[in-house]
Structure formats: C-alpha cells, structure tokens
C-alpha cells in the first residue's frame, strides 16, 4: 500500500496519542513538531512509539533509524524508507 506523507501523519497521530497529554497540539502537528519538546512526550515512551510504529506500518525500525525519530518529519522519513524497502 502506498501512503503519502499526509496519510502517514494522520496514522502517526494515532501512534502518538497515548503518550501525549496535549491532544490539541497533536491535532495540529506538522513535520517540524518535536516529540519531546513540543508534544511533551516522556523520553521513557520513545521505545513504545517505535514499537507501535513498527506494528502500525508493518515495518522493522533498526537502531540507527530509530535514533533519527526526533520530530514528526524525521519519523515520516524513516517510515517511508522502511515501507519502500518492503515494496
């Protein structure tokens, strides 16, 4: 299945939702939104997010890619890269 970046953002919101209190900010995220400093996600949940993303998009995120997932844009880059590897 091919998803564009906006579709990935829409799905990513569902992945991030359990880990942020600020649902209003989550609704309005863009590629620059930082997971920790903007969405106030506790760093202890970063591994949860990676594993939830792996499950949501049916991909495997290696450690080198995981460390790039700092903001929404870099999350999408990693997800797109891993989805393309499957095609």
């Amino acid at each position, binding site marked *: 299945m091919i998803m564009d970046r906006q579709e990935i953002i829409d799905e990513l919101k569902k992945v991030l939702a359990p880990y942020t209190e600020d649902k209003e900010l989550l609704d309005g995220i863009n590629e620059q939104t930082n997971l920790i400093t903007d969405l106030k996600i*506790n760093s202890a949940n970063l591994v949860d997010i990676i594993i939830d993303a792996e499950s949501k998009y049916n991909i495997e995120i290696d450690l080198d890619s995981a460390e*790039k997932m700092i903001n929404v844009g870099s999350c999408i880059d990693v997800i797109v890269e891993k989805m393309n590897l499957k095609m």
Partner: protein
Amino acid sequence: MKSTGNDIVALQGINRQRTNHFLFYSKILSVSEQALYYRYGFAEMPFEQFVWLLWSIKESVYKYQKRIVPGLIFSPTKIIIQGIDPPYRHTVTSFGGIQWENNNKESCEELYKGIIIFGAGIFYSRSKIHCEFITTVVSNDENFENTWWGIKPIDHAAYDNQSKAVRAFILDKLKSILPGRQDNLRIGKNRLDCPVVLMGAMEMNIPVSLAHHDHFIAYSFLLKHP
C-alpha cells in the same frame, strides 16, 4: 566542562509486559548489557526493573553529555554500561518518604553503582531503587564530589505540574545552601535546551539536570559544598 545528568522512571508508568519482550529491551540494551543481569547477581530483581535501571543510567549519561556536545542525539545502545554493582544484601522497599536528598556527604549504602563508556568518556552512576521508582545520577567523578541530588513524589502527574514542581524543588534546595538572599533565582534553558540556573538575567555556573515521570520528580546539580 562541568556537567551533571539524572533521570527517574516511575515503575507505575511503565509497561512491564512489553518491557520483558525482546523487541522492546533489545532497542535499549546491547547483548553484553543483557548478560550483566546474570553476571552481577540481579536474580532477585525483575528483569523489567533491570531494563529500566539501565535506561535511567543511559538517559542520565545522555543528559550529562548533551550540555557539552551540541546536537547530541539519544541513542541508548551507543551508551555502553560496562558493569553495575548492586548494594550488598539490599531489599527493595517502598519509598514512603516526603522527599529524599543526598549531597554525597552522608553515607548511603543502598545505591547501585555503575561504570559507563560513551564515546571517549568514562562515567559513573549511582542509582536508587524503590518499589515505586528507579532514579539515577551520573558523574565523571567516581567519588561524586559536589554532586547533589533529590527525589520527591508529587500529587498531580500532569506535565505542567511536573515541570513546575521539579523547578520549585531544586530552587528550594539551592536557596537553602547558597549564601545571602536568593529571591531572584530561577531555572531557565540555554541554547542547547539544557536547564540552567539564572540569577536575574545572569546564568550561574551551576550545572543542573531535571527529571520527572508520572508522580515523581528528581534533580541533580554540581556545587562545591559551602
């Protein structure tokens, strides 16, 4: 350059079942670190607590180094824990207190002591474990000279409350030990997004680290004993 780093993990806020899954802990621990669980006599500690103990050490080292290395990215498996010594005959108990503070002048025999390699640096960790939380402070000084750290439970776990409470907690401590009146002391952030102590508009030479998770807050700072 002087720095400090700390972290706290509230055990109520973690997913125990998920932590015990290889897919989860292999993103935090290297194979050699997984072996420490068996080598260092952690058999009585649930494995998920071991994982979060090592997480708290790694996060503390990252926060220590973030103040020194601009743009540093947290990559847990690149921070290598070489060894970790549990306290002798220690039983994990309920915290039960209003708060706990230590300035390394009082002996504390219930600490887990670790040694860590990250890049070219060697770091030392001290961790305190209770039924409710795991907290760590790190230093590049094996003796933790001039390292102060504290832990406190809070009533409300909302982010804004955690953030305000941990700043008030550390400021109370700093005001109690710095000479003179310190009414204009506050906590800000520098250009590296690290917390700093400000007196008015002036940044003081006191490295600080703040942590909060669920219903617990923690600080560490470096300050020569008055």
